[in-house]
């Protein structure tokens, strides 16, 4: 098993799937000649040719709309949006078309479509380019929303997403493309809709996903070493369909939970998880559930302010200590 970055893992998954299935093709801004905004598709144009590696205009509605049309006609497009913030421009195509066509036309169409979209803050890109709006997309039935937190899952989940016959929004986080981890070579598939315990512990359950998985694991180590608090970390990996099984199982053991997400707290992923825990495991609740999330402001441009607004490892540690009191 090779230790590679998330960027390489995603690139590997795309490459392998395009090699495997000629119906798979990629399209998006700068995916071809430039090799991808984040260099994920470097070398693809030369290898696969312009038919399967298509540069597009700066028009997200057109990108997603064209991908939907291709998918309805039997292709397996992987459309890349430069950032998830631009997905709002394509909102109608994503929400009203991609998520509903299969249902509204009695199953006549399937949409084996993947929309890759990096998000997240922390790179001083300003309020409109730094959002983590994952919860918004997870709101809509019909749309699969995947958000891996490790290189292995990035590869395994992207490959599974490409093979899925449902439209998948594959949310990446631009600040962790360099994060390294062991990734199985070859046909490594991670099932969609399966949460996973990434670290075992007994005192408190951290529920998280994507970039905040790394933060949570770091916080867990510090809590274990510094305070003797044993932290279990559950990685959601898929936001819809949401797999609460491992979360509830862990919660029944620890009876306490903190939910960590990069997006805003209000109406967020943490709200959903907390609600479900009390619905499914009320009699196991030993303390109020806490949420760690982004401060409720448009993300500041100023580097210090930006970091203050984003959830940090110390915030997680503080929340855990509150919960295990």
């Amino acid at each position, binding site marked *: 098993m090779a230790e590679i970055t998330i960027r390489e893992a995603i690139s590997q998954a795309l490459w392998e799937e395009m090699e495997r299935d000629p119906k798979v093709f990629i399209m998006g801004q700068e995916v071809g000649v430039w090799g991808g905004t984040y260099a994920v598709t470097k070398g693809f144009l030369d290898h696969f040719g312009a038919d399967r590696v298509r540069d597009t205009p700066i028009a997200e509605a057109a990108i997603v709309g064209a991908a939907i049309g291709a998918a309805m006609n039997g292709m397996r497009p992987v459309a890349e949006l430069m950032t998830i913030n631009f997905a709002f421009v394509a909102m109608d195509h994503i929400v009203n078309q991609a998520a509903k066509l299969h249902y509204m036309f009695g199953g006549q169409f399937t949409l084996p479509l993947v929309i890759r979209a990096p998000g997240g803050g922390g790179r001083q890109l300003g309020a409109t380019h730094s959002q983590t709006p994952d919860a918004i997309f997870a709101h809509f039935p019909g749309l699969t929303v995947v958000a891996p937190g490790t290189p292995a899952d990035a590869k395994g989940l992207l490959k599974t997403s490409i093979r899925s016959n449902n439209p998948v929004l594959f949310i990446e986080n631009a600040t962790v493309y360099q994060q390294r981890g062991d990734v199985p070579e070859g046909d490594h598939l991670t099932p969609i809709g399966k949460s996973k315990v990434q670290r075992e512990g007994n005192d408190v359950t951290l529920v998280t996903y994507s970039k905040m998985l790394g933060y949570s694991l770091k916080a867990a180590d510090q809590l274990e070493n510094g305070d003797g608090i044993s932290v279990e970390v559950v990685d959601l990996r898929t936001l819809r369909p949401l797999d609460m099984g491992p979360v509830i199982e862990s919660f029944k053991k620890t*009876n306490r939970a903190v939910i960590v997400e990069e997006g805003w707290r209000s109406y967020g992923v943490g709200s959903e998880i907390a609600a479900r825990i009390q619905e499914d495991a*009320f*009699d*196991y*609740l*030993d*303390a109020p559930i806490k949420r760690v999330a982004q401060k409720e402001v448009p993300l500041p441009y100023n580097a210090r302010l930006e970091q203050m607004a984003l959830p940090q490892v110390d915030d997680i540690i503080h929340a855990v200590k509150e919960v295990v*009191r």
Partner: protein
Amino acid sequence: MADIVEMPKLGFDMAEGTLVKWVKAEKDPVQKGDVLAEIETDKATVEVESPYSGVVFKHLAEAGKVLPVGAPIAVIAAEGEEVDLSQIAKPSVSKETSGQPVETQPYQSKVEEVPAEEESGEGSQAMTTGGFVKASPLAKRMAEENKLDLTLIQGSGPDARIVKRDVEKALESGTPSKRKEIAKPKIVSGQDQVIEISKLRAAIGKRMLESRQTIPDFYVTYSYNTGSLMQMREDMNRDLPDDERLSVNDFIIRAVALALREFPNLNASLNGNQLTRFGDINIGSAVAVENGLLTVVVRNADQKPLPTISAEMRAMVARVKNGKVRNEDIEGSTFTISNLGMFGVEDFVAIINPPEAAILAVGGALQVPIIQNGQIIIGWQMNATLSADHRITDGAEAARFMQKLATFLEQPWRLVQ
């Protein structure tokens, strides 16, 4: 021509009634005598019959309202008739159930302007909720599973919340409340409940207090040999279907009524210096209801044969039990019988029900050893105690009445002559 239905006076002391429920909706056709609404008085829920025929043009009061006697509650009009409500202006009063001063105001021209009161009374009753223990849901469940009393455990969580570790600690130390081999009685402090007493309860209380404070009563007890009566009842019932069987009380009602014919002072009512000796002998019998009692009345019981008395009693008791008692069922008694025989009671004393002169408390007909012709035999005996108003009568007269009663109870064929 439209007619106004008013809150009826269903008893001499009724001042107000609660409109419990409309039976006829607006626009419903209604015949004179049809049940229009149900009204709760101090004593019971009674059905109000429409005094007019036509169509219910308008309800002038909502269900749940307390209204004084005489307040307009509905307008009955002819089919298709348009009624100008302003033309049938009448004073209307209405008040909250909370017992605030009655506010009189002219009956408004438009029904919408009849003061719309909020739902009041019933729901706002305060319940004391003592004994809340701050514990996590998990701690509560663990305590329940392990039969632990959380009130005895000290909480170590935020704000002294009892959490898992506290319950675990309590389980480990075997204290403070784990079930031992020899279980100590677990004393759970009861909670006081403050309950608004019902209108019926309040009415009974007022009446009894008045009786005790104003009537100098005295008591005369007599033992009746009811062997013959029991035998006769058994013989008569043998020929009757189940739902027509005579009760001991039916016999007593008739016996008392016949005896009273010769004792007009006991079938009377004192008002100042005037004594009214009633022309009719109407025998009331106390019937237990939830939270109180009602007295159902057999009118002219001295003139009615046993089966008639029995049938009337059965019908009235049934109406009492299902809350559909009629006004005439419970009004107008001149003498009251209270019978606790069915509970195995031997003797008791009843309080006079004003403005009556006396009340008879009847115990059960019980098998006892009795002396007959110098022999001890098994016989039937029933005790009764008369409470009588000393302003009206004396011990000797009361005793003679009890003796007279014996001639009917001990020679029961006189009851069917």
